[in-house]
Structures are given as C-alpha cells and as structure tokens.
C-alpha cells in the first residue's frame, strides 16, 4: 500500500493540523516508511491468533457507581480564555 500527498493532506485536515507543503512532503516520507514497516509486519502469519485490543493483557477494573466529584467550576474555569454565565465561550460553531 502506498500513500500519496493528497492522503497526507486529508489526514492533516481530519486532525485539524495546518501543515505547509514542505511539512506535507516530509510527513509523506515518514509515513511511507511507517507503511513499509506495517507491510513487513503484515507478512507474519497470524492464523489462529486472537487480535489484541490493548498492549496489556489485563481486564478493565470497574468503579462503583458513586458520585465522588464536587463542583470545581471556579478552579476549572480560572484558566479558560473566556467564560460567561458559567459557560465556556468559544468561536461560534453551527453545523
């Protein structure tokens, strides 16, 4: 599988990363190497091996359903750029 410059720009757009044409070229070279590595890994026969979803073979521990957090709005909003009526203000977004 090969990757092209337009794929790099698409991924950058999805990730909301603003990259210059030079950076895109550099990323293309790096990603191409990574894809080569993946391709090599793909050649390993994994028949009968159950896919892992996590690097550690342990199961999730569960938390009892209890409210343990208190209102920390003031502290949390101290570093917010703009706040009004208890809300975080952001540039207007309407889909």
């Amino acid at each position, binding site marked *: 599988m090969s990757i092209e410059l337009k794929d790099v720009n698409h991924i950058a757009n999805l990730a909301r990363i603003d990259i210059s044409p030079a950076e895109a070229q550099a990323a293309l070279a790096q990603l191409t190497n990574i894809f080569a590595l993946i391709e090599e890994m793909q050649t390993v026969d994994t028949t009968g091996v159950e896919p892992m979803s996590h690097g550690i073979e342990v199961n*999730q521990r569960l*938390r009892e*359903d209890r409210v343990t*957090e208190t209102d920390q709005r003031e502290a949390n909003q101290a570093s917010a750029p703009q706040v*009004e009526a*208890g809300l975080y203000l952001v540039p207007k977004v309407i889909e």
Partner: protein
Amino acid sequence: MAGRKDWEVVIGLETHTQLTTASKIFSGASTAFGAAPNTQASVVDLALPGVLPVLNKGAVDCAIKFGLAVGSHIAEKSIFARKNYFYPDLPKGYQISQFEIPVVQGGSLTIQVGSGQEAVSKTVRLTRAHLEEDAGKSLHEDFAGMSGIDLNRAGTPLLEIVSEPDMRSSAEAVAYAKSLHSLVMWLGICDGNMQEGSFRCDANVSVRKKGATEYGTRREIKNLNSFRFLEKAIETEIDWQIETLEDGGKIRQATVLYDPDKNETREMRSKEDAMDYRYFPDPDLLPLAVSAEMVAAIRASMPELPEAMCARFMAQYGLSAYDAGVLTGSHALADYFSATLAAGAADAKTAANWILGDLSGRLNEADIGAAAAPVTPALLAGLIKRIADGTLSSKLAKEVFAAMWAGEGDADRIIEAKGLRQISDSGAIEKIVDEVLAANPKSVEEFRAGREKAFNALVGQVMKASKGKANPAQVNDILKRKLG
C-alpha cells in the same frame, strides 16, 4: 402524493438511551439533570491533560440488564474505541464508544402494531447495543458571535440500541420505539424522559419497489425526541424519497434533520463529506470482561418482564389481553394493581376496571404517575371491599372515589361522613317503593298496560327518593313483586 402502493418502506432505528446511573460513565461527577452549567463537569469530563477514564460498573450493569431482557448475547469481552471528531462540546476530540465488539450483541423485541382487536404482533431483530458517553451542550444564542459550552452532560452514560432494518412503516417504527421506551423504563435503566433527551431516536429510512431484494439508498434522520416527530419525520421522508424516485431522481446517502415547523427533512451532510471517524481501540481502557457470575447476579436481580407479567395477569386473574397489556404497559401501573390486590381487594377484575377507568382518567387529567396518585392502592382496596360487601353501589362508589381523590380520607370515613351507605334493608326500600307507587299512579297504569319503559321510570323515582342509596337490585325485585 406519490404512489405508496408500489413501494416498500424499510426502516431501522438507532436509539440513544441515557442510563440512570448516579455518576458518569468514566468519572465520578454527578449526572443529575438541570444543574448550573459546568458544575458537574470534572477534570475527566473536561479532558484535562493526564486524566484517565475509569469505567462505571452501574453503566455496565444497565447494559447487561437490557441485553438479558431482549435475549441478546452478552459479550464475555468487549472493547471501547475512540470515535474521532472535532466539536467544542467534545473536549477530548473523540467520543469513547464501542465499535467492533459491543457488550450486547443480537436479540429481538416483540412489538404490537395497532391497538385493541386490530393489533398485530411483530418481532424486530436487534443488531447490538453498545455503551458510550454523551457529549456536552452547545448554546448558540445569546452570546454575540460566540457559542456557550456546558459540559455537565459530557460523559453521561448512553446505551445505543441498534435495530435491524426490520420495520416496514412509520407505525411499526413508532410501535418499536414505544415498546423499547417502556422496556428500558420497566428495567429501570433509563428514566425515559424524552423532553430532557433521555431517549432519542435516529431513523434510517429507505424505499424500494415492491418485490425488490436489494435495499434502496437510505437517509438517516437524526435526533427525533418525540414519538409524534418520529412518525411525522418518517412519513415526510418516505413521501420525499418516493417522489424523488418517481420523478426519475436518485437518493443520495445522507444525514438529514427534521424540521417540524416546515414539516420537511433537510440534508445535513452527504456521504461524500461524511465524517471519517477513524475508530480505534482506546488505549486508556482495557477490555471489558463480563463474567458468567456477573450475568447470573444481574439476571437474579431483574424484575419480572412485562410480557411475562401480562401473561400471568391473564392466567392468574382472568384479565383480558387488552386490560393485562395496559396494566403492564408501565411498571408503576402494574405495581399499583399488584399493591391493590395485596391490600385486600379480592376481585382482581374490579380492581383492574377501577385502575384502567377512574384512576387512569384522573392520572391523565392531573398529569401524574400512578405512584403519585392521592388514592393509594390501600385506599382503592378499601373502596373495592365496600363494593364487594354491598355497602356501596357502583354509582356511590364513584362518589367515594372522587372524595378519596380530594383527600377526604378512606372509604369508610367518607361513607360515614357523607351518609353514602347503600340502603339494603328491604323494609326501608319497601317503604320508599310504596311511597313512589302511591305518588305515581300514571306510571303504574302505563306499566300494567304493557309499557316496559314505565318500569324504569319507577326505578328512577325510587332511586331519586333514596338519594341514590337504595340497592338497585333490591329495588328491581321489590318493584317487580309489588307490580306483578
């Protein structure tokens, strides 16, 4: 209007049910509705650097309960994934959801389409149900050029229930949604409050020529939060799709929004610019393992399901399918019925009639649930006892019920206070009958001349003279004897 008869409609629903946990799915912040903005948004919900999600057992229990109720496979191991997209009310830049391996797999729900004698039973297959977190809320008005973000809802646990495309009309879709709504409330895993967004549906709708084997291209109507809008949105969409196809057009796969004011569905985004969510397993969360012991414990704690209870009410108490169905339509009503019998109402059929009649009427009028009724099951049982022992006629009983609803005490107290005791002393009734016969010679004459109606007039006079308190059966007997 397009020619519906040539087309088959195909509908599948995705339903987001907000789970009734006290705390959020991955943090210990409260999920209570209506708090001041951002007072229930913890550092985990705000996605501050370095925080980690810890899964809430309560949310997992809810999912298992649901799965068991609809006969699903409960996955021994399921996986949480990141669904990536950018929106200010999603601070992490991704929603934690389940993608490849959800906790609840398969299952089915039996629905009743139509009502009364016309009702038809149908089984809708379920694809899956998965756990995920809700996003926050964006408020676009009131802030010049800015949007206000409230993250209280961020991290609220949701169970997204996905059906197979098994529904063939808006009526079936609504019947399914209603059935699912009452089931999740019955199980106590969702409060069912649609105004507050606790239960919301997305409808996938497509049409195809009758007899076609391939599905048509579908459009997804997002965020329908009432049964009426669900029905209207689907109807509008069906008409639009059939018209478009009959005019030689093509349906483009898209996400649409329903505008109730204009009664139209409007494209939000097409498939071409559909989001690429780049799902991948969330490295912050290990696989969720559900042991057989966990499933068994939850199974043991589950309430009797509505279908089973309905069948039991029919078999045990001789109720009609309709009455039993309405009583088991909500847990509160079924509990009320059971509690009334437990409080000593001997005749289940009479209890059912009162609950489905006077009580339900008053509950609707007052817009309250059965649990909040001023006439408690114990009070109703007391009333039914006085009907059974002949103290009250059904007419007097209604008067007593109204007084109980108004908070005037129990049946016995009201009967005493208002002197509503039915007159069953035949001597007393005979005396009233004699007086009425003496005062109404014309009616007596008419009756003797063969006019049956005159008899009813005389009964009416006796009841009136007794202020409605004479035992009607006895009045009939005595009158017949005296005239005969």
